[in-house]
């Protein structure tokens, strides 16, 4: 490849097929020999199934439920935990829980049959919110306290430090559900090809699906082949959730002996898919006489929904990030995954980190404002540096370039002048946030759990194929990964083949999640390409394989969550400026300035795209994206109810980066796909709070809530609750 710097942008490999509409998504395939299917779901949030009246099914139509799981098979989906059932049996824990799959050749007839299904329940009182879950409303249904999972971390000695504090203040910060709104809704088709179950599916993690559903039929994952189809967005919503489609499809195909397909409509997908965990973080902070932080305690509650599934890992990441970009002398965090009767919460860009980062940033702002300080000046006192102790008693391994990034955004945004000029409550405000994101799986997860492998294959015609399980879902990985190989091998990008993964043809390089693909798998490709380079001209056709090796000396104790949680963090600073309509509370964002440290960028344009999208998605989460669950039912069911931002809502962004090559990443690159989501919401809310002069401690904050704060909110300068 004839570019000097790998950062120089190239045209995306998939640009043409996506822009021209020729890309084939799963529902575009001619699965004509396959049956249609409809999911039969629980219509109540909590109860016991008393009776199911199935209409008389014509020939060729099938009802598939838990009774069709063969002997030896297990009725669960193996996500991270194994508690999420494939089909409900006796009780239901949330609205939308899968009860059965109705399959048949004619979609119209299937629709009519679907409408005739009647299910009788004995309804039980649901617990919907975190508080209702904790209070065991309607009786506990997980353990005896509705706590799915729990962890506790401590740096220093918080209790002793509290004794020395001049005053101790408390504050609760809350965040809401968020829906992924990927452009392409969920869909999958399962067929039998050469005596194997073959899935065509819109998904992030093909190997996860095999592992998750094989126990249903008590078969080896190798008997299932997963072929990822072009995936129109995921954001974490297709990390584990495709299992919920593929499990029932597998049982159905096993029973019927024929292929079955299942595609969700937008409304169906919104009502019946995983969401971002709502959160509640309770801080207790001890200050000395001069207002410095002596100790901080945080209790982190995540609404995990009806099943644990992946929530413990999400909660862990939340607790690891709750200290933000700061190092406090004494710090503790305790996390609780709360069981409620809502759709199980799952992965969403940031994977638990955005909630606690929003919480700590907002709490830090409020600690500053109550002392009459500019939040920036207060936050500056605690920035963590290289060698600084993290929330898990590990150390920050790399240089922390926050001072450099801060200088960039101060200059581009003119922050200091504006802070002076815009009085609190003047209708104009500027806010700032600092955030990070630990790249890849936590601790030794890459080494102990994933054990990623990757292959490069050279063909006699000089072309090179990348064989790994990573997926393109819109983020640009189909360009990033070949670019790394082409650059190392010094061959044209077009000579690198990288197809959508097929689990029977590629090694398992781990999930496309956790901001790990470039950082970990990119490195495996770089290493493989270097090995290949030595033999490139000597041998016509050959393969090289690489596997992940964890750097020595950075230990992790997964039982107690102690040690080096992450070796490479992405870092970010974001400034947002707003003005508020004094008549209506409408907020107009006047400017967005950010700087990020993603090591060395593999492709500037793709990284720009990630920043643009991530920052806006983060502000959407904090402002207009209201997703309410009323008595166990999601209220927003369509794209006219659930308000994601459009390009008209925000101005062009000013995007900056710092160069900070990561020694274990390809060309020095680190993860950044989640990082760019993690902080914009806090900067926006900081700006908004200052503009209206009121303290905002929960999101989302749409126009009508802004008005309520303007009318009845607490003054931003008021003291937080003093508990001692």
């Amino acid at each position, binding site marked *: 490849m004839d570019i000097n710097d790998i950062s120089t942008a190239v045209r995306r490999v998939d640009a043409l097929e996506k822009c021209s509409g020729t890309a084939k998504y799963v*529902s575009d395939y001619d699965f004509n020999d396959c049956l249609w299917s409809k999911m039969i779901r629980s219509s109540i949030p909590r109860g016991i199934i008393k009776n199911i009246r199935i209409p008389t099914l014509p020939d060729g139509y099938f009802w598939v439920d838990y009774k069709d799981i063969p002997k030896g098979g297990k009725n669960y989906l193996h996500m991270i935990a194994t508690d999420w059932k494939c089909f409900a049996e006796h009780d239901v824990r949330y609205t939308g829980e899968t009860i059965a799959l109705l399959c048949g050749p004619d*979609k119209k007839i299937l629709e009519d049959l679907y409408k005739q299904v009647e299910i009788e329940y004995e309804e039980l009182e649901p617990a919907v919110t975190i508080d209702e879950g904790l209070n065991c409303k309607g009786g506990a249904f997980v353990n005896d306290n509705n706590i799915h999972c729990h962890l506790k971390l401590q740096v220093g000695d918080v209790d002793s430090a509290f004794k020395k504090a001049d005053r101790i203040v408390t504050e609760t910060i809350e965040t809401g559900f968020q829906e992924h709104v990927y452009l392409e809704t969920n869909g999958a088709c399962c067929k039998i090809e050469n005596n194997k179950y073959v899935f065509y599916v819109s998904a992030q993690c093909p190997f996860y699906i095999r592992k998750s559903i094989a126990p249903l039929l008590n078969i080896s994952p190798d008997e299932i082949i997963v072929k990822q189809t072009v995936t129109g967005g995921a954001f974490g919503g297709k990390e584990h959730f495709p299992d919920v489609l593929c499990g029932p499809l597998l049982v159905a195909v096993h029973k019927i002996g024929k292929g079955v397909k299942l*595609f969700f409509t937008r409304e169906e997908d919104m009502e019946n898919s995983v969401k971002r965990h709502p959160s509640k973080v309770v801080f207790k902070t001890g200050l000395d006489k001069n207002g410095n932080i002596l100790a901080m305690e945080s209790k982190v509650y995540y609404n995990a929904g009806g099943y644990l599934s992946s929530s413990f890992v999400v909660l862990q990441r939340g607790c690891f990030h709750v200290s933000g970009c700061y190092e406090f002398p004494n710090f503790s965090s305790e996390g609780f995954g709360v069981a409620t009767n809502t759709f199980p919460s799952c992965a969403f860009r940031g994977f638990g980190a955005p909630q606690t980062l929003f919480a700590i940033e907002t709490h830090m702002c409020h600690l500053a404002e109550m002392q009459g300080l500019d939040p920036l000046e207060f936050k500056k006192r605690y920035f963590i540096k290289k060698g600084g102790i993290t929330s898990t008693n590990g150390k920050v391994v790399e240089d922390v370039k926050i001072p450099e990034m801060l200088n960039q955004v101060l200059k581009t945004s003119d922050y200091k002048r504006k802070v002076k000029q815009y009085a609190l409550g*003047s209708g104009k405000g500027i806010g700032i946030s600092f955030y990070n994101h630990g790249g890849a799986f936590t601790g030794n997860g890459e080494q102990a759990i994933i054990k990623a492998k990757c292959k490069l294959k050279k063909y006699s015609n000089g072309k090179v194929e990348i064989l790994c399980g990573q997926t393109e879902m819109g983020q640009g990985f189909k360009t990033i990964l070949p670019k790394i190989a082409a650059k190392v091998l010094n061959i044209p990008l077009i000579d690198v083949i990288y197809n959508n993964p097929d689990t029977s043809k590629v090694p398992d390089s781990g999930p496309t999640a956790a901001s790990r693909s470039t950082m970990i798998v990119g490195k495996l490709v770089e290493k493989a390409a270097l090995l290949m380079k030595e033999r490139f001209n000597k041998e016509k056709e050959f393969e090289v394989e690489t596997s992940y090796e964890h750097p020595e000396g950075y230990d992790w104790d997964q039982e107690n969550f102690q040690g080096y949680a992450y070796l490479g963090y992405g870092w970010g600073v974001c400034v947002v400026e707003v003005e508020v309509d004094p008549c209506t509370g409408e907020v107009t964002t006047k400017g967005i300035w950010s700087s990020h440290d993603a090591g060395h960028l593999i492709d500037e344009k793709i990284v720009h795209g990630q920043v643009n999208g991530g920052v806006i998605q983060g502000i959407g989460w904090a402002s*207009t994206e209201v997703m309410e669950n009323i008595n166990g039912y999601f209220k927003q069911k369509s794209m006219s109810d659930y308000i994601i931002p*459009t390009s008209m809502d925000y101005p062009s962004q000013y995007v900056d980066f710092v160069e900070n090559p990561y020694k274990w990443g390809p060309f020095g690159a680190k993860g950044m796909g989640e990082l760019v989501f993690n902080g914009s919401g806090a900067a926006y809310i900081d700006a908004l709070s200052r503009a209206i002069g009121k303290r905002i401690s929960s999101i989302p904050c749409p126009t009508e809530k802004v008005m*309520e704060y303007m*009318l009845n909110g607490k003054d931003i300068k008021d003291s937080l609750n003093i508990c001692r």
Partner: protein
Amino acid sequence: MEKIDCYIPETLQEALEILHREDVIILAGGSDLMVFHKNEPSLIPEFEKSVMIIRNLNELKGIRINSNGECEIGALCTSNEIAESTIVPWHLRQAASRMGAVGLRNSATIGGNIANASPKGDMPGPLYLLDARVKLTSLNGSREMLVSDFIIKFKSIDLKKDELITKIIIPYSERDFDYIFWHKVGTRKSNAISKITVGMALKFAEDEIVKDFRLSATSTGAKTNRNRDVENLLIGSKITEENISRVIEAFDQVISPRAMPVFRRESTKRMIRRFLSQCLLHPESRVIDTYDSYYVPGSPKPVFNI
């Protein structure tokens, strides 16, 4: 599902004859009806009775000024046609230009927006404000009535089975007023449904006496709200702090928002206060907005807490 007929008449006469003999669903732009009757992908939408698609009726298209100087808009005019026409009154152009997204604005019609009778509809507000009339035509002739009378209540209109909305006639425009106001608070900046929309217009007589004042609000009850008793509190008087408060309090009694009541009531109050207090200052711009942009050099510093 039984089979239904679908008619696509080419002339108004043909359409009226179909209406005369058969009970049909009239489909113009389809932007509401097709969503309402949406079916699973690849399945045909299901209508409970026959459908008549009237898009081809040229008699229902076009915008002109009639001999009385009134603006006449064909019922099939789309939001984009209305937004782009310079002869359409300002308030209606504003409303049309902020409706949905471009694709919807190219398809949705003014006749359909009125017939849908949604309290969140974008067009009825300005039409109420400007005393617009609908022309209803059947084989037996035509009749005209105020849009505000035609829309009876939530999703209910005074249309006989054999009638078609053919025209909307608007007697007033911004030229009849000294100051005008229209503000939609959408769920976001574009492609948005109204959370609240307020339209106002005011004309002074001599000596600061208010000659005409109009006020309408959508998304604040079962139908668009306009109340002449409230307007009469100001007409014939001067704008004073006391009068402004009387109008605000009286209009607050008129509206009945169910969801987001605090926001809807308070923002309505603030918008009325802003408009009237600005009129009193006789600013150069006839268009009054909710606040002076903080970013225009030399503009007065906004007073935030009204």
